[in-house]
């Protein structure tokens, strides 16, 4: 009984880390854009959905193999993200935050509409590159899909960290985000750096989308719930903290699975799958009330 409970527990942890990895990627995208443009990009989920449809179309209609389609989608998404910033965001960037937020909501609606128009609302199936096998590791059953998801998410996060930490363009991206005027004085082309940030965010979203589709099925609203979890992750970790987004994502993923686990064993027996999303909203609300800067954020100090 105890052994069974333990392997159940571990299974929930592993699958929590897998979904948490996806939340982390999308949360990271939100953080990158929030740091540079100063707003929450409400279209982040739909951008990811569009990217995922591109991957699916490449595979289903154009006969691409999975990994080339994966890479092709990343390239498309990056370029698309840069383009969205140049064409849609940049013209309103100097205006109020509200204007930019409204534009991202408009973008959400527009992309969603485009996806339905182009591919219809019918759910589609995007294959998993990791297969459907499960492995028995010391009594703990883990799905290849989960392990693959964790590995890809981790790999992308590490690559991005390396880019920001060790490259010249990464340094310029950080400088442009925290202090644009100063950055221009040293010769950084800040508007291009912001566009690059949007490109990276779109790329992160694409990975999140492609990792989400095999388990939940590809449909135009696939990322809506994931975006809420990503919000929760970003708020929990600190909306301006990349590390916070990753830690927050993993925490949310594992935490929600823990509630499922506990409900199976009697505690929190009121908890059902339908309550996962409200729970995420509760976390957002709780963090904003108790520690608005999140785990890793710095408290906002306003000079009078």
């Amino acid at each position, binding site marked *: 009984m105890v052994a069974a409970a333990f392997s159940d527990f571990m299974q929930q942890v592993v699958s929590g880390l897998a979904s948490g990895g996806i939340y982390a990627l999308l949360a990271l995208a939100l953080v990158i854009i929030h740091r540079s443009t100063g707003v929450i990009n409400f279209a982040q989920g739909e951008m990811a959905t569009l990217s995922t449809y591109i991957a699916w179309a490449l595979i289903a209609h154009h006969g691409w193999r999975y990994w080339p389609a994966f890479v092709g989608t990343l390239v498309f998404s990056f370029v698309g993200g840069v383009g969205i910033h140049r064409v849609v965001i940049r013209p309103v960037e100097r205006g109020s935050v509200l204007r930019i937020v409204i534009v991202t909501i408009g973008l959400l609606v527009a992309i969603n509409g485009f996806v339905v128009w182009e591919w219809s609302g019918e759910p589609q199936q995007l294959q998993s590159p990791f297969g459907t096998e499960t492995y028995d590791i010391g009594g703990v059953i883990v799905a290849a899909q989960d392990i693959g998801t964790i590995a890809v998410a981790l790999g992308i996060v590490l690559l991005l960290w390396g880019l920001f930490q060790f490259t010249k363009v990464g340094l310029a991206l950080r400088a442009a985000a925290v202090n644009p005027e100063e950055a221009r004085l040293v010769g*950084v082309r800040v508007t291009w750096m912001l566009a690059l940030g949007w490109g990276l965010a779109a790329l992160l979203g694409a990975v999140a989308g492609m990792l989400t589709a095999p388990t939940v099925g590809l449909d135009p609203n696939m990322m809506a719930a994931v975006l809420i979890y990503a919000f929760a992750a970003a708020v929990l970790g600190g909306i301006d903290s990349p590390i916070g987004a990753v830690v927050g994502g993993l925490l949310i993923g594992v935490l929600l699975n823990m509630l499922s686990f506990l409900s199976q064993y009697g505690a929190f027996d009121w908890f059902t799958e339908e309550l996962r999303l409200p729970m995420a909203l509760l976390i957002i609300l709780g963090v904003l009330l108790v520690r608005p800067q999140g785990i890793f954020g710095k408290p906002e100090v306003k000079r009078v």
Partner: protein
Amino acid sequence: MRTLLELDGVAARYGPVQALHDVSLVVREGEVVAVLGANGAGKTTTLRAISGTVSRSGAIELDGKQLKGGPESAAKAGVAHVPEGRGTFVDLTVTENLKLGAYTRRRDGSVRADIARIAEYFPWMAERGGQRAGTLSGGEQQMLALGRALMSRPRLLLLDEPSLGLAPMIVREFFRIVRKLNEEEGLTVLVVEQDARIALRASQRAYVLEVGRVALTGTSDELQGDESVRRSYLGY
């Protein structure tokens, strides 16, 4: 000496407010030139016009070539602007700040060598390269801003009110380093200062601005020696 920077009839405005009316000045290669004047005389705006961070009209030539608008192209042309109030990236480390200074330069091995060279002027920077700039003292941040500007190997260094909010001892140390850079490396400097006394001691020539126009110019020795000038324009 060759003329490095020439402003001819430069005007600048912030929205509806005309901050510079008609400023003409010359900085020759290897000179330290001070821009003095009361609050609101247009000292800071003069520097901002040169580095392209304010909309301007009139001619600004560096090395005989018209400077294009926008701070990125000024930086590329060799203008390093240390803005008022310590121009450091507080979230980045000392070393990262210095590296950003070299942003416009071609990527080659010389960046590391330059960081070492700058650490000769500011030894503490070598030991505390990993420290976040925001945790430095005000004086250290001002030195870091100077060090970062030097990393671009500037043709022309613009310093805006470097003495602001710093203890007199730190200010003297700062200007001692600026003079040393000028003498040893031939660095050309245009410095805006509220503190006329220290600026005249550090410079060879000076311009005095009054409501957006050049009211007076001369060698720093002349201006320092003339009591009526000191009283009516420099306030000491």
